[in-house]
């Protein structure tokens, strides 16, 4: 486990907090993502009931909470898979779901979404690998089609990413031949190779056999230590959240109930909701 200072900050955050005099060592930066007054309904069912959340460059946020509380929906809105019913999300101060047209904010076009999406990546609970492509093709597809890289360069980058997740010896296998843990690591490499500035990990170990969870979490820890990419980690793995996250956000029933450093939240939960939620993981 990474050593923690008394206030619960990771060492590098501690340093930043000291230099700036700001509480969490991030707030001197400009947020890369801002959720503002976000609401989301599916038909009659209101799933997100007004959320404000800033994600700072490089920050690792663990989003925890009971299932059905809207965690996945929050991540999917950032990945442009779900449109907010109201409120705004900005990435680097630019609205995600709206764009400016002749001085007015109008609904984003596919072109606008395409440009904004290049800053975001996502890893899914059920991997969603392309079954008809080899591991290598899964990882080179987007670099080639979207970034228009030459085959050699795309493959070079892909192999580098696959090495990072420990799968450089599976380049030419089809996903059907891989274990769940290996599939998820390919999916991580596939998202990483596009070098997003912020990445959503939606319960990426929930669909795995227990003995395969560790290998995937270890890969994510390595990536987190690499640094620059902000991460929104939706997870039920409390130990992992504690080790990796700079900040824990606890949500329930479409609202953020409590947030703070891992130490603050896990050692000294304030709300009854969080207390009873944490009981279940003891």
């Amino acid at each position, binding site marked *: 486990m990474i050593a923690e200072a008394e206030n619960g900050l990771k060492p590098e955050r501690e340093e930043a907090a000291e230099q700036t005099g700001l509480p969490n060592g991030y707030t001197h930066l400009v947020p890369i993502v801002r959720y503002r007054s976000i609401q989301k309904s599916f038909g009659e069912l209101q799933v997100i009931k007004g959320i404000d959340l800033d994600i700072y460059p490089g920050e690792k946020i663990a989003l925890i909470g009971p299932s059905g509380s809207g965690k996945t929906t929050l991540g999917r809105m950032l990945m442009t898979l779900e449109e907010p019913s109201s409120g705004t999300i900005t990435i680097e101060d630019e609205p995600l779901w709206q764009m400016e047209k002749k001085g007015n904010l109008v609904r984003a076009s596919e072109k606008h979404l395409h440009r904004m999406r290049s800053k975001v990546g996502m890893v899914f609970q059920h991997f*969603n690998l392309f079954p008809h492509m080899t591991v290598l093709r899964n990882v080179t597809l*987007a670099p080639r089609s979207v970034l228009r890289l030459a085959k050699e360069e795309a493959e070079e980058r892909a192999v580098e990413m696959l090495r990072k997740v420990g799968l450089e010896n599976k380049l030419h296998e089809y996903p059907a031949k891989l274990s769940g843990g290996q599939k998820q690591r390919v999916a991580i490499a596939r998202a990483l190779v596009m070098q997003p500035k912020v990445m959503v990990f939606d319960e990426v170990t929930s669909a795995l056999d227990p003995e395969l969870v560790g290998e995937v979490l270890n890969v994510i820890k390595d990536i987190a230590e690499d640094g620059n990419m902000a991460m929104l980690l939706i997870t039920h793995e409390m130990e992992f959240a504690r080790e990796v996250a700079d900040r824990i956000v606890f949500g329930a029933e479409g609202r953020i109930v409590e947030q703070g450093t891992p130490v603050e939240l896990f050692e000294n939960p304030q709300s009854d909701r969080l207390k009873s939620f944490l009981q279940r993981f003891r």
Partner: protein
Amino acid sequence: MNLPWLESLPLLVDGLLITVQVAVLSSVVALALAAAAGLARTSRYAAIRGLAGTYVEIFRACSLLVLLFWVYFALPFLGIELSKVTAAVLAIGLNIGAYGAEIVRSSLKAIPEGQHEAGIALNLSPNERMLRIILPQAVARMLPPFGNLLIELLKSTSLVYFITLSDLTYEAMVIRNNYYTWTPHIFGSLLIIYFLLSSCIFITFRLLERKLTAWR
């Protein structure tokens, strides 16, 4: 053994060629219509979906024989005169194409939503998602039902007998008129020839399927 009706074998070969010609041409028409209408039914524009849906409902519901009569006997009254082969290809193609469109549509729909979403998360354009992610998987799913459909198509070509197009079945009837007592032999041969033709289709699709689903 003395099989006098075999002297008419050249007639049967002529008929076979017509049957194959009609089957191949109407397969092309049917596949093109199936692809176009099947894709159109997943369009984001309601008008396009509606148009394709109407085509499917109408041509799937109407009897192939009645459609064939319509194209060959009724259209001339509207000033459109088609050759027998063209009429046959058009009628069979329109009818089988409507069934094929349903295969295309349901295969596209069967691809899990997660595949679309992974494509979006990787920032692929809608066209690239369709071309590189959805279609290759959907085509693999379409092969077995399309194999069945083309066998169905082949068998339905014998209906052209009723517009007196001299296909395999027609020629067999002609030969039967001349060698009435050999009727069991003649129709037996006919069955075997259709069976062999069907087998060609079946084997082709099996091989294609094996090749296109090596990843499974």
